[in-house]
């Protein structure tokens, strides 16, 4: 017979961290399903998954940035900016495709700026993106004069509210992106180089990887995904709010870390992040359904994060996360 302690050390520790997350999710579903009957209804699950798809798409970009050893605070602001630009331009009578192009180009420009500040000028990622975030929010206020924008084409809302084969389009998009970027990260050179750069930027440099260029690309990619989420978001609300996305970056980082991606870079994956987002959103959903207020939810979310990451780091003896990237 194995002693409990040995079981913990031996058998259980071998399980993948993400398996434990899944287990948690399963337990949560069972408990919540018993406590509240509507929790497990298809309708509820579809609603929750639909609304988490936007932030999941942003978090995928964030995951890649964090794996590359960076950090992006500006995602929420980009998410707010793009639909404002698109809506404003469309209100001026610009063809919608051109408006979209404007929006995405603007997002890419911000991503480029982030990347250049961090990879070329040597800014700390947290500070470089903090500066662009601050400036960008102000830019949004200037162009929108603080008013929500709702000049969008008639069919615009179908993007977020429509269904294909009975599945809401945002969910399909999220799944497509999740599969696509998991594949990118595991099967392409780009993904491999991102892991190498985040794992050891000096070694990656010497292996001939253009790490500065790669870092810039990663931030541009994060900006593009944030822009896309912004489009989905505004399509869901049929309106672009200049205040949107104020908490997005922290929500994303929480999910990314919960999903097992290392803040030091070089380790993590898209699946984990999606799992993290799903867990966080179903926690909120479950608490909402039994009427527990947002502040208790905050406390619980914080505890889940600490417990999960604490478990992950203690699972591997000697594993430390003291290393930080300075990119």
């Amino acid at each position, binding site marked *: 017979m194995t002693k409990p302690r040995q079981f913990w050390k031996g058998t259980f520790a071998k399980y993948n961290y993400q398996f434990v997350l899944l287990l948690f999710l399963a337990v949560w579903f069972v408990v919540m399903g018993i406590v509240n009957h509507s929790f497990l209804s298809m309708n509820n699950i579809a609603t929750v998954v639909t609304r988490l798809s936007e932030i999941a798409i942003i978090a995928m970009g964030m995951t890649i940035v964090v794996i590359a050893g960076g950090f992006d605070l500006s995602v929420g602001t980009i998410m707010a900016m793009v639909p404002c630009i698109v809506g404003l331009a469309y209100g001026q009578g610009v063809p919608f495709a051109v408006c979209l192009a404007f929006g995405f180009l603007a997002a890419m420009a911000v991503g480029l700026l982030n990347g250049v*500040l961090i990879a070329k*000028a*040597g*800014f*700390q990622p*947290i*500070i*470089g993106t*903090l*500066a*662009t*975030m*601050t*400036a*960008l*929010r*102000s*830019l949004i*206020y*200037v162009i929108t*004069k*603080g008013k929500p924008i709702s000049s969008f084409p008639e069919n615009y809302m179908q993007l977020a509210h429509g269904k294909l084969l009975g599945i809401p389009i945002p969910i399909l998009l999220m799944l497509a992106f999740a599969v696509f970027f998991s594949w990118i990260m595991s099967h392409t050179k780009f993904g491999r180089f991102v892991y190498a750069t985040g794992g050891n930027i000096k070694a990656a440099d010497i292996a001939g990887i253009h790490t500065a260029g790669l870092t810039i690309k990663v931030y541009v990619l994060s900006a593009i995904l944030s822009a896309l989420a912004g489009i989905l978001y505004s399509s869901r609300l049929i309106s672009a709010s200049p205040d949107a996305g104020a908490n997005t970056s*922290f929500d994303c*980082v*929480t999910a990314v*870390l919960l999903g097992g991606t290392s*803040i*030091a870079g070089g380790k993590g994956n898209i699946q984990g992040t999606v799992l993290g987002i799903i867990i966080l959103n179903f926690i909120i959903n479950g608490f909402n359904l039994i009427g527990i207020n947002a*502040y*208790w*939810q*905050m*406390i619980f*979310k*914080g*505890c889940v*994060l*600490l417990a999960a*990451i*604490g478990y992950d*780091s*203690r699972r591997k003896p000697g*594993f*430390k*996360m*003291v290393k*930080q990237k*300075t990119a």
Partner: protein
Amino acid sequence: MKNSGTKNVRKETGGLLDTLIRIPEITIVLFIVIVSVFIGIQSESFFTTDNFVNISKQIAVNGILSIGMMLVIIAKGVDLSIGSVLALLCAVTGTLVEQNAPIWVAFPAILALGAFFGLLNGILVVKLKVAPIIVTLGTMNIYRGIAQVYSGGKWTSNLPDTYIMWGQGLMPICLLIIVAILFAVIMKYTSFGRHVYAIGSNEESARLAGIRVDRTKKIIFTCSGLLIGFATMVFIGRTGVIQPSAGTGYEMDAIGAAVLGGVSFAGGKGTVLGTVLGAVLMGLIMNGMTLLKISANYQGMITGLIIVLALLLDTFRNVYQGRRARA
């Protein structure tokens, strides 16, 4: 044959420019001078005693908080929970006021409680073996949740003058100066201070050199918490009201001040003087915005721009210094 020593020795002679450029705080001083002169030319109200008193009051809270943040960043961490701890301390002060606690009870109690919450952060960092950014991201949620749940969101007005006085007149700047000098001495002249730098510079080396790394980390977070206690008293004195929702986003202001002042996320680098100057620059920017009659919509853009410029200047300083060191 003699060992010919260091590269450092060779370059220790040089012109005034070289001497100046080696002072890490030089860029921030330069920037403060430029910004001051610029505002002074545009606005007569700038170079007046009243205005300086105003600025001194306005920078005190962020100044005190950023010294704590500096400690944590030097040790290669970051404390995202400071705004939430401030809120929680405000909530507790609310109770103290309602119980008619005299200030000589309340002030030490708040300091002790702040230190306690900081220590809790420290213990979690040490015990969970998780990067401080993750731990404090968790406690940021937990503390804010508790603050709101504990206080029920209630504000307390009509505070006794003994509470208000800490935020009036020259008191805030005096407190800031006392705290700054205290910590400048601690950082330079105590083992604890040097060990903070050692841990940030190379944690493993510090441990092998016999430094009690875990204990030092706990003290670092305790100090950060203690300083939040000081900041809370100034904050309450300035606002004249107790607001359990206070302090949102203060962690970013404190990080901004510290980084502008030359503290590096790579660890081991930074001074109290630089950090306080960073807070001064941020205060000047805010003061200048109003004095120069800049529309609120544009203020964020200018703030972002100044942060980028100040850090770029520091990048150039480092590059120049590097060149001189080689030549």
